[in-house]
Structure formats: structure tokens, C-alpha cells
């Protein structure tokens, strides 16, 4: 079971210190150089205009860091993009101007939202859930900040991905994160993470959709 939150944070835990470190090293070097070589009357300017060995060594170090980052990115991405052979639950998520709908094919449940409020998405905690994402009109994006994850919803294309919601009892929001017109700002859905038992109870309370899609 792959938790996107965990994967994201672990990868960031490598990237962020490197980025901050590089920034501090460059700024400190630059600051030192500017102070040390400030114009003074009679300062003799160095005639040295190249240092091929030093520069080559530096390039190798840079390439080494870049290679390391690419390798850990590939490893993380393999886990995040992998699809479970038999997910515990499948949900077809569909974006359209400007709301979300969620269809649970095995359970025959169709959540389309009521009135002006956001559509509700009920999920069991600690289970691998496969989302089959698409759009009926323009491109939208299914974005859950709590999961540190988003995917584009594209008309005529189904994007599949797995998510795991680790903790029950969480209530959080998901948003459209691809600009889609005047309703974009308000295109939101509300997520309820239930314990597996509470989720089963919720399923049994729902009316079945008349025709399976």
C-alpha cells in the first residue's frame, strides 16, 4: 500500500535540504567574492581566464547530484504511479463544469452532489482505492492537498491512479486545480474518511443507482 503523503514527504526530505544547501553555498560564495574583490585603488585584476580541471571536477559533482536526484525520483514515481492489481474499492470520478461526481461501480452508488454544495466523497481508511478519472467537457484536475496529490481530468481519456487515506475520521477538501472557466474557484468536493466498518454502513444506507453505468 503506497501512501502518496508519505512518498511525497520522503522525497522532499531529500530535495529540500539539497536545494537550501546549494542556495546557501552559492550566496555565501558570491557574498565572499563581492566583499573580497571589491574595487580598491591599485587592485590588480587577475589575468587567469580559465580553470578547466576545476571546472570539470565541478561539472562532475553537479552531474552526480543530478543523477542521484533523478534516481530517487524514478524510484518514488514507480511506487506512486503503480496500480494495485486488486484495489479494495473503485471510484469513477468525473469533473464537469463546475462540479464533481463520484460513481462506485461495484456498489452501484452515484454521488452527484445536492444543490449548491460540494459533492461528498466517502472513502474507507487504510484501503487502496483506485480512481478512474475523466471529464465531460474541458480539462479539470482532481487535487487533494491533504494527500499531496493531483491528476488531470481530461475529456475522452480515463486517468487511473491509486490513493490510500491513512487515518479515519479525517474530513478534508478536494479541488479542481486546472483552470476551467468562471466556476473554477468554487469547484470543490468534500472528503470523509471513514473506518472500514463505518464505510460499509454508509454503503448499505445509500440508494442504488437505477442503471449501472
Amino acid at each position, binding site marked *: 500500500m503506497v501512501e502518496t503523503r508519505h512518498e511525497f514527504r520522503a522525497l522532499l526530505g531529500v530535495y529540500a535540504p539539497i536545494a537550501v544547501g546549494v542556495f546557501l553555498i552559492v550566496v555565501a560564495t558570491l557574498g565572499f567574492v563581492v566583499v573580497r574583490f571589491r574595487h580598491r585603488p591599485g587592485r590588480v585584476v587577475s589575468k587567469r581566464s580559465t580553470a578547466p580541471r576545476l571546472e570539470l571536477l565541478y561539472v562532475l559533482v*553537479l552531474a552526480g547530484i543530478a543523477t542521484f536526484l533523478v534516481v530517487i*525520483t524514478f524510484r*518514488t514515481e514507480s511506487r506512486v504511479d503503480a496500480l494495485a492489481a486488486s484495489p479494495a474499492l473503485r471510484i469513477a470520478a468525473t469533473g464537469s463544469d463546475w462540479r464533481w461526481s463520484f460513481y462506485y461501480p461495484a456498489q452501484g452508488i452515484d454521488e452527484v452532489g445536492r444543490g449548491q454544495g460540494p459533492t461528498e466523497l466517502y472513502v474507507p481508511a487504510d484501503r487502496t482505492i483506485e480512481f478512474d478519472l475523466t471529464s465531460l467537457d474541458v480539462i479539470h484536475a482532481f487535487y487533494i492537498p491533504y494527500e499531496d496529490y493531483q491528476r488531470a481530468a481530461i475529456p475522452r481519456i480515463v486517468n487511473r491512479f491509486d490513493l490510500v487515506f491513512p487515518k479515519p475520521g479525517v474530513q478534508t477538501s478536494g479541488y479542481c486545480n486546472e483552470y476551467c472557466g468562471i466556476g473554477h474557484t468554487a469547484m470543490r468536493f468534500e472528503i470523509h474518511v471513514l473506518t472500514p466498518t463505518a464505510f460499509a454502513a454508509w454503503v448499505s444506507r445509500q440508494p442504488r443507482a437505477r442503471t449501472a453505468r
Partner: protein
Amino acid sequence: MSTATVPVRSLGLIGAIGATDHKSIAKRTALVAFVFFIGGGVLALVIRTQLATPNTGLVGADAYDALFTMHGSTMIYLFLVPTAIAMGVYLVPLQVGAAEIAGPRLCLAGFWLYVSGGLVMWSGYLTDDGPGAAGWTAFDPLSDSPHSPGIGMDFWIFGVALATLGCLVMACCVLGTIVARRAPGMTLLRLAPFTWTMLVTCLMVAVAFPVLVVAMGLLWVQREFGGIFDTTGGPIAYQNLFWFYGHPVVYVMFFPFVGAVAEVVTVHSGRRLFGYRPFAISLLAFTALSTSVWAHHMFTTGQVANRYFALTSTALAVPAGIEYFDLIGTLAGGSIRLRTPMLFALAFLVQFLIGGLTGVLLGSPPINYDVHNTYFVVAHFHYALFAGSLFGCFAGVYHWFPKVTGALLGERLGKLHFWVMTLGANLAFFPMLVDGWEGMRRRIDSYPASAGWQTLNDLSTAGAVVIAVSTGIFVLNVVRSLRDRRPAGPDPWGGHTLEWATSSPPPRHNFDALPPVRSPAPLLDRREAAALAAAQHSAAGGSAA
């Protein structure tokens, strides 16, 4: 020297329309671009006012969508790209020792294509439904006729196509000048650093810009007749076309200003560019990679080879690192004068680094899955393009203003401009890194009070106002400088490259005489040779006494 000088009459209105002197075309392009910069900046101020409080409601959703669309489109298609090209149109013929740009009338046509593109795009504000409002990227299907029915969207498409075609034409003239109009002795490895950056910029323009012009044509056909992008995978095809332009263009808006910074760093520290060859090689590597990274804008679509584009995007850190190494290596061992151009160049190095390093993070798909389309990305490209490119641009403006006008810009106002602009840029864009990280989406017209982003947004808004003040200081500096006309002389800084070998401003034919070209810094060669001769002469005189 006694050349018979033919007095050049001012051509007035006809000159403003039809003068083919590359210096005049470049000045007009820069002036028009600056007007668009002010226009795009005013839109930014309205955007920042809207976001200052959670539910300001200053403008409605439709007007807000037009605001960020026109802000981004103006700054990219009508300000930064034309400004970058205009710098090349002015300086490249001078730096290669040419009397004229290659294809002067073509270049003039490019200028007018650009101007008409800008006017067409902005005339969307005169239509009932307002201007284009599908974002600066105009993704299909949002930009097709059912979802963007207004004529303003068509104006936007034609405006982008015309302005881009104009810049393409001007860049071809610059490229032709570098290829065919170099002075005797000016080999490719003796080009001035700025000319090197323009060379690779024009190569990227030649490869990428036609693709956007075609994409705009296809978008228009889609709107009128359909059948282009309304297929399975059609919207992705549009994005591939768009970003095949849209990523190289980032470097088109960046490299000329790296070149400007390189010139400022060399001249104002009195030193030759350190690592000239690695610098040139890194530019070529960047250019090659620039056409191989476009789909890192599409990681979350699930429809591109994420790994390939993550690999190429991360690889960019290597040539970028070489450029930093060479520029800091030039400063080390020099004699650094902290005049206004140097201050802007140093701030460019620091602030662009924030844009570059956040870019490395964004180039990793699993990180991108979280922060894509949030204010983290907005902060990233504003650090790259505003706090980076535009600071590099101002380094160049303060450096070359005396060459272009014959008058020096004021140092005190220049330094005030620098410090106020630095404060404004960081105040505006650093908070965006934070609220983006917390999940604030881009292109939203309001946010809930419960999100807790108001303080960060207030800082950004204050920063935008400070930037506006700094721009006012710059305009004041230019106006005062042109009124007082403190004469600059041909070479106020102790320049290295050929543009400093002629008068300020240069005559219509650019040069009366050229010094011999034996390195990328012919004027520095000449001064060093003269100093050596003087030393030998005094030594000889001393022994004779």
C-alpha cells in the same frame, strides 16, 4: 579620421513608421514593450487588490479570469520576449562590428507585426464579452468556441500569432547578422558573451516560435470549424504543441539577460569572462535541452513520458551550474565596482537561483503532483522571470543606456530603484512560495478566510505596490537623465566589446573605424596593449637617462 559626415535629418513621423536603422527599430520595440509592461503591471495591481482579502469581490469571476489571462499574455508575448529580442536587434550588429542588421526591412516588418499583435490582443477589452480569458496557455477545450464564445478570444489568438511572428522575424534578422555580418577577425569564439546568448536565443526562437504560430492557426480553425482538437487525445496534442513553444520561450526570455549580466559582470569588474568556452558550450547544451523538456508542464496529465522529461529537466542543472561557475569565477579576481548595473546583476544571480532551485523540485513528478498549479509554481516563475530575467534586463538597461542615448542614468536614483525593486520583488513573490506550499491554487479569484492565507497575500499585495513605486523611480530617472543629458562619452565604463568603440549614440552606419578583433574583448586588448607600450616606453626612457 576625417570622414565626410552627411547630416542625417530627423525623419519625424515617417521615421517613426518606416526607419530601417536597427537601432531605431530596437528603441521603438523597447518603448512599445515598456508600455505593455506598464499595462500588464496595472492588471497585476488589480489582481493583487482582489486577493488582498479573502472575499474582496472587487471584480467578478469573468473579469478576474480576463485579468490573469491578459497579465500573463502581456508580460510574456508583448513585454519580455520582444524586450529580449530588441536588445539583440540593437546590440548584436554593434557587437559583431556590422554597419547594419541583416534584412533591415524584414526587421521593420517584424516590429510592426509585433505592434499589431499587441493592439489586436488588447482590443479584446473593447468587445462586449471582453478579451481572451482562457489563461496565457489557452488550453483546448477551454479555449474553443463553446467554452470561450467571445470574439475577444479570437483577438487573443490573432494577437499572439502576430506578435510571435513579429518576434520570429526580428530574431531571424539577428541570427542572420551573427552568421553573415561579422567584422573581419570576429570568429564564433570571439563573439561577445551577449552575442553568444543572442545566438542561442535566436536558434530557440527559430525552432519553437513557428510551432506556436501554427498552434494558434489550428486553434482558430478548431473554433470556427472544429475537427482539430476534438478527438481523443486532441487536448493533449494542443498542450504538446503549446509547450514545445512554451518551454523554449522561457529561455528566450532568460538568455539575453544572462548575456547582459555577463557583460555587466566582466566590464564592471574589469576582467575577461572566466571560462568563455565552457560558457558557450553550456549555452549550446541548454539550447539542445530546451526542446526536450516541454512536457514537464504536463506531468499530472498522465499522458506523457514523465521519466524522460524528469531526466532532461533535472539535467538542466548542469549547464545552469556552469554559467553560475563562470560568472562568479569572473567576479573572483576582478575589481568589482558596485554601480547600479552590477547591483542588478548580483541580485539576478541570487534571485534567479530561487527560481532555478524551485524548478529542480518541480522537475520531479512526485513533488510536482502536489504543487503543480499552486502559487508555488507562480512564485517559481516570477522568481525566474521577474526577480531573475527582469533584474538582468535592468542590469543591461543601466549598462547600455548611455550607449543608446548618449546620456548617463543617475546613480543615486538608480540605486534607489534597485533597492526598492528588490524589496518589492521579494515581498511580492516569497510569500507565494509559502501559500502555494500550503495548497493555494493559482487562477482562483478568492479564497476562504478559514484558509489563513490573508497575511501572506497582504504581503504579496504590498510587494506589488512597492514594485509599482520602483518602476516610477525608474521612469523618473530616465526622464531626468534625458532632460539633463549628462554626456556619457563613447565608453563610460571601460567597455570590452565593439559597441563601446563608437560614439554614443552610434552613427547611422555604426562605426567609422574598427579596432582589430583578436579576442572576445577587443577594447580591453587595445587598452592592455597601450598600457604595455607605455610601460616599455618609460622603461626604455628610464634606461636612456
